[in-house]
C-alpha cells in the first residue's frame, strides 16, 4: 500500500520509519507547514533526519499530499475536540477520493463518528482507527473479532500518565503535585497534563469504544468524566489499608461512558502499575477478555496504524 502520512509527530514519524518493515511505501509525509512528497516513495530516513533536526520535512506544500497517488491516508495530526478539525476534513477528503483512511487522531472518531461512517458508506475506501484506543494494544480488533454486538462493556485503564501518577502516589505516599512534577521530569507527563489528569484523554477513548459498541451516538459531551486532581495521597493510603487502590477507570457500554477514579482490589487485573494500560472486554458468550500493554508512544502506536493498514481491503 502507498501511505500518505499527515502529522510528523512521534506517531507519524514512527509510521514512516516502520512502514517499509510492514511492506508499505511512504509517498508523502507532512507536518502543518511542509510536506515531503514523492510518488515513487520518499527517502524516509533523510526526511526524518530533517524533521528531527528542526528543518522542514520537505519543500512541498501539505496540500500537495492530496494530489499524490496514495492508497491510505494516515491521519496522525494532534487530537482536537469539538469539530475535530483539521483531522476530520483530512479523512473526508481521502474518503471522497475513494481512498482509505487510518486514524491515530482520536478527535474525528470520538466527536463525529456518524459523519465519518456516512462518508465511508459513500466511498470505495474505508476507515480504521485501532491506534486511537490504547496505542499498541489490540482492542478494537479484539472487539471486531468478537463482533461488537457480543460485547456488553469495555472497562479499564487507558491513560498511562494518570496511572503512573496514581501508582507513584500509592507507592511513595506522596501527594498529587509532587508526583506530577516527577512525571513531568521523566517525560511521562506533558508540560500541560490537563487532558491526561482530568480524564478527557481516557474519556475520548471510551467514547470511541461506546461508538463502536453502539455504531455511533456518543461524543465527549455525553461522557461523565472526573479526573484525579482531587485525589490526595491519604486517600490511596486508606484504600491500601483495605487491600485496595485507586485507578482512573473508564467504562463504555451501550448506555453511556463514564471515567473517574475508582477503588479496585490491589491484586486485580485492572490495577496495572506505571504507564501500562489495560482493558477488560466483557462479552455475552465468552466471559471477560483482558488485554494489556503499552498505551502510548510513537513506535507502539505506529504498530497499531500499520496493523490497520494490513487489514484494509485492496482498493
Amino acid at each position: 500500500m502507498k501511505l500518505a502520512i499527515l502529522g510528523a509527530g512521534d506517531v507519524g514519524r514512527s509510521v514512516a520509519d516502520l512502514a517499509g518493515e510492514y511492506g508499505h511505501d511512504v509517498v508523502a509525509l507532512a507536518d502543518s507547514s511542509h510536506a515531503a512528497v514523492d510518488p515513487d516513495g520518499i527517502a524516509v530516513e533523510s526526511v526524518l533526519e530533517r524533521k528531527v533536526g528542526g528543518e522542514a520535512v520537505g519543500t512541498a506544500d501539505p496540500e500537495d499530499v492530496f494530489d499524490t497517488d496514495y492508497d491510505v491516508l494516515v491521519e496522525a495530526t494532534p487530537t482536537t475536540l469539538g469539530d475535530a478539525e483539521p483531522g476530520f476534513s483530512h479523512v473526508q477528503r481521502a474518503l471522497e477520493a475513494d481512498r482509505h483512511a487510518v486514524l491515530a487522531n482520536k478527535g474525528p472518531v470520538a466527536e463525529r463518528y456518524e459523519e465519518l461512517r456516512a462518508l465511508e458508506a459513500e466511498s470505495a475506501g474505508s476507515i480504521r482507527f485501532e491506534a486511537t484506543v490504547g496505542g499498541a494494544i489490540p482492542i478494537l480488533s479484539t472487539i471486531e473479532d468478537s463482533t461488537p454486538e457480543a460485547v456488553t462493556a469495555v472497562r479499564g485503564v487507558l491513560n498511562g500518565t494518570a496511572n503512573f501518577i496514581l501508582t507513584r502516589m500509592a507507592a511513595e505516599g506522596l501527594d498529587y503535585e509532587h508526583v506530577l512534577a516527577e512525571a513531568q521530569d521523566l517525560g511521562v507527563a506533558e508540560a500541560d497534563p490537563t487532558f491526561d489528569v482530568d480524564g478527557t484523554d481516557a474519556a475520548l477513548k471510551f467514547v470511541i469504544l461506546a461508538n463502536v459498541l453502539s455504531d455511533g451516538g456518543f461524543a465527549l459531551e455525553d461522557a461523565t468524566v472526573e479526573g484525579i486532581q482531587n485525589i490526595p495521597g491519604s486517600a490511596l493510603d486508606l484504600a491500601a489499608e483495605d487491600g485496595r487502590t485507586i485507578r482512573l477507570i473508564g467504562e463504555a457500554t451501550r448506555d453511556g461512558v463514564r471515567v473517574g477514579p475508582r477503588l479496585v482490589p490491589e491484586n486485580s487485573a485492572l490495577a496495572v502499575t506505571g504507564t501500562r494500560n489495560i482493558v477488560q472486554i466483557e462479552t455475552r458468550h465468552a466471559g471477560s477478555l483482558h488485554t494489556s500493554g503499552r498505551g502510548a508512544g510513537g513506535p507502539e502506536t505506529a504498530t497499531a496504524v500499520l496493523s490497520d493498514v494490513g487489514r484494509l481491503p485492496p482498493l
Partner: protein
Amino acid sequence: MGNVPASSDEDDPDAETDGGVRAYTVRLELVDEPGELLSALAPIADNGGNLLSIHHERGNITPRGHIPVEVDMECPPDRFDGIVEALRDAGINVIQAGEEHYGEEISVVLIGHLVETDLSNTLSRIEDEADAIVQDLSLTSPEGTDGVASARARLAINSGRSTEALETIRTIGTDKDLTVVEPLLAGDAA
C-alpha cells in the same frame, strides 16, 4: 475440597480470581461445643475466602438452641458458592442460604472538607438515603480538621442494591462538594 492449602489463589483452576474480590456476610449457626468455631472457619479459608470479621454471639441462642455466628469475608465472586458448599459439606448449618439473603459489602472513599461539611451528617445521610449501614470508618486529615481529609467507609447494603446505593452516595457527595471514589463492583470486574 477441604484439604487444599489455605489462601492459595491457584487451588481452583475454574474460578476467575483476577476480577477482584467482593465482601459477603454469611450467617451460620454452631453447636455449642469446643472447636466448632474453628471447624466452621476452616472451609472458608481453604476455599479462597479472606476472613474480615467474626461476630460470635455467645449470649444469643437460635430457636434450635444453637449459637448464631456472623462471618464477614471477602472472596472472588466465582468462589462464593464453593465456600457455602464447603461449609455445608463440613456439616455447618448456613442459616442464610440463597444469594438474595447475603448482604453485600462495599467500600467507598470520600475526599474533601469532611469535617467542615459535617461528617456525621454525611454518614447519616448515607445510612438513610442509600439504605446502607456504615460498618466502619477510617479517617485521615493530614492537613488538620479544616483541610482536605479522606475517609474510607465500609458499608453493608442489601443484596443487589449496590448500584442504586452508589448512585445515592454520589448525589450526597455532589451536594457536599465531596469527591466520592466508588468501588468497581466485583460483579462488573469478574
